[in-house]
């Protein structure tokens, strides 16, 4: 990170002062999708994609959201932008409940909250030139003068490391990494405060990933952005995040500062996840690993008690019966486990 950032951010340890202002507060959101079936398409059950998740995002921080596919991390990201309507719970952005806004108010709020996608191929409209894509965004939000828009587009392209002549080109003329930069430029067009990044580097080649990660960090410093970084890649989440939330079957099981979480996980699932993550060091490969048995259970019929008990190496009878609460487990950290690891 480059110096000259907000004083609240400890660059070396990547710790955001916990008294730092809260930008977004997520309170117990649930996202239940009906499962339809049968002849009349009646509701036969619910996929509990997100099942009671609470956390807050502090101004200027990067909050990592990790978990395996189907754990609800992307859905959470969509729900806090109200791109999906949460079934229950509330999301407050700068103190305003975004679920109480009408369409017009929500459209204005969209300037402050943006989204960056995983797949740089499907996230750009193939029929619009880069300039047109960015121009539309500016136009919707009231930049009427074409000359002004062009000026801003040039500025945006340069900001993300592209050239102003790229504005006349179409998405298919760019590589994956360049497309991701265009997606970032689109998200930045309206000067947002919060960006949800949904697996922003997972689809990119290894040698391109670090370019994009550097760009994201640089932009955060220059523009004072807050990131919700959704990813299944533990290495990248650890690298980029100040705090990390771990999700399993629609619930957050652990939340802590990045270093604490990776050095000293409290939840057995976090521990297993970290242990399973291949380390790029062949000398460490014969270290014992925690290999979780079986698969993630179905979110339609989640297990009783603690959702993780079916795979947990430490599970006891209480875990099968009683759902653990998401409680404080040290300074600025939370865990949902009856028997947290010490």
């Amino acid at each position, binding site marked *: 990170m480059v110096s000259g950032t907000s004083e609240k951010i400890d660059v*070396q340890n990547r710790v955001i002062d916990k008294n730092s202002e809260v930008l977004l507060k997520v309170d117990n959101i649930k996202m239940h999708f009906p499962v339809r079936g049968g002849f009349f398409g009646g509701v036969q059950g619910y996929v509990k994609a997100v099942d009671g998740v609470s956390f807050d995002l502090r101004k200027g921080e990067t909050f990592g959201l990790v978990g395996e596919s189907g754990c609800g991390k992307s859905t959470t990201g969509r729900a806090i932008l109200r791109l999906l309507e949460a079934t229950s719970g509330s999301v407050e952005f700068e103190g305003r409940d975004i679920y109480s806004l009408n369409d017009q108010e929500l459209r204005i709020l969209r300037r402050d909250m943006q989204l960056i996608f995983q797949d740089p191929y499907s996230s750009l409209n193939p029929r619009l030139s880069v300039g047109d894509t960015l121009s539309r965004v500016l136009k919707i939000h009231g930049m009427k003068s074409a000359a002004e828009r062009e000026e801003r587009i040039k500025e945006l392209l340069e900001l993300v490391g592209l050239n102003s002549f790229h504005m006349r080109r179409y998405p298919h003329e760019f590589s994956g990494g360049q497309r991701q930069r265009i997606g970032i430029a689109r998200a930045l067009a309206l000067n947002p405060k919060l960006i949800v990044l949904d697996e922003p580097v997972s689809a990119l*080649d*290894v*040698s*391109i990933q670090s*370019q994009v990660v550097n760009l994201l960090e640089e932009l955060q410093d220059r523009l004072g952005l807050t990131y919700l970084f959704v990813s299944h890649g533990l290495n990248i989440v*650890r690298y980029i995040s100040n705090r990390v939330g771990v999700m399993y079957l629609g619930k957050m099981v652990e939340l802590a500062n990045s270093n604490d979480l990776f050095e000293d996980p409290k939840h057995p699932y976090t521990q297993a996840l970290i242990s*399973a993550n291949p380390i*790029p060091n062949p000398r460490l490969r014969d270290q014992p690993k925690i*290999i979780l048995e079986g698969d993630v259970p179905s979110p339609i019929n989640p297990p009783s008690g603690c959702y993780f008990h079916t795979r947990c190496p430490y599970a006891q009878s209480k875990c099968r019966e009683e759902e653990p609460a998401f409680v404080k487990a040290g300074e600025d950290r939370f865990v949902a486990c009856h028997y947290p690891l010490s």
Partner: protein
Amino acid sequence: MVTTSVKTDTVVSVKDLKTYFYTEDGVVPVIDGVSFDVRKGETLAIVGESGSGKSVTSLSIMRLIPTPPGKIVNGDILFQNESLLEKSDKEMRQIRGNKISMIFQEPMTSLNPVYKVGDQISESIMLHQKASKKEATAEALNLLNLVGIPEPERRLNQYPHELSGGMRQRVMIAMALAGRPDLLIADEPTTALDVTIQNQILQLMKDLKAKRDMSIVLITHDLGVVAEMADRVVVMYGGQVVEQGDIFTIFEAPKHPYTEGLLRSMPTAAKKNGKLYAIEGTVPNPLHFPVGCRFAERCEYAKDLCRQEMPQIQNLSEDEVVRCWKYTDRWEA
């Protein structure tokens, strides 16, 4: 304990292989002079980014290049000292599945959705061995046990869509093992899987390799998986091998600037401060490869020499091969 097996018997030997694709826009040299050996009982990892030619290399070994547009235009592939390129299609079908098997990234697309898992496995057993339907089913059950599928009897009667991703990959592995192959080619076998499931599959592959005394060619872009699995590594870039060596040399003393860059750009905890190292630029377009070294444009050591002339592949030691001007007499000149 850390171990690498160094055996000298060669299972597959790829020699100066060139596989070109003839497209509307021109000739694409997807593989452009690739040579390497796979030794008995080892895991050889082929590492590279998209467009590096790593997957086409494996398809070339299997003789599964779609023709047209693709064509092997040069070189040879020796399997147990016999040229695969000279085999008839019928002989190749015998080899595929029996002696060389392959598993792919997305098990759902490689399994037939309309047949039960058990039928698909016993089918592939009967294809390669003289077995009755009953024997084949029994063997299928054995294989499901071998690949660690819980409740194997029940799984025999299930359809692919009823299984999870990890389970399907296990079924694919079971099918690949049906013919008792000497070589298993695994093309990004865990890329579509979650970390905890990936771990299970990698562990399974390790166990099976030891039990069945197979060689494995592991194609991946994930250096974590390579560090976990491989005995030796082939690094590909722009359709060529740029470096080849044993796992420890590659990770601890990489020679080629590209390998070095890949390792340095890993976001591991040790490099938390400051910026993440990044290889600048993008992968060159295979339709317009540069004259000189294909990595020169992105290489921080590149000199005029690198841009003007393609470096040749050379042996630094018995086990180490690199394609870079830095290791030649002409570098200092």
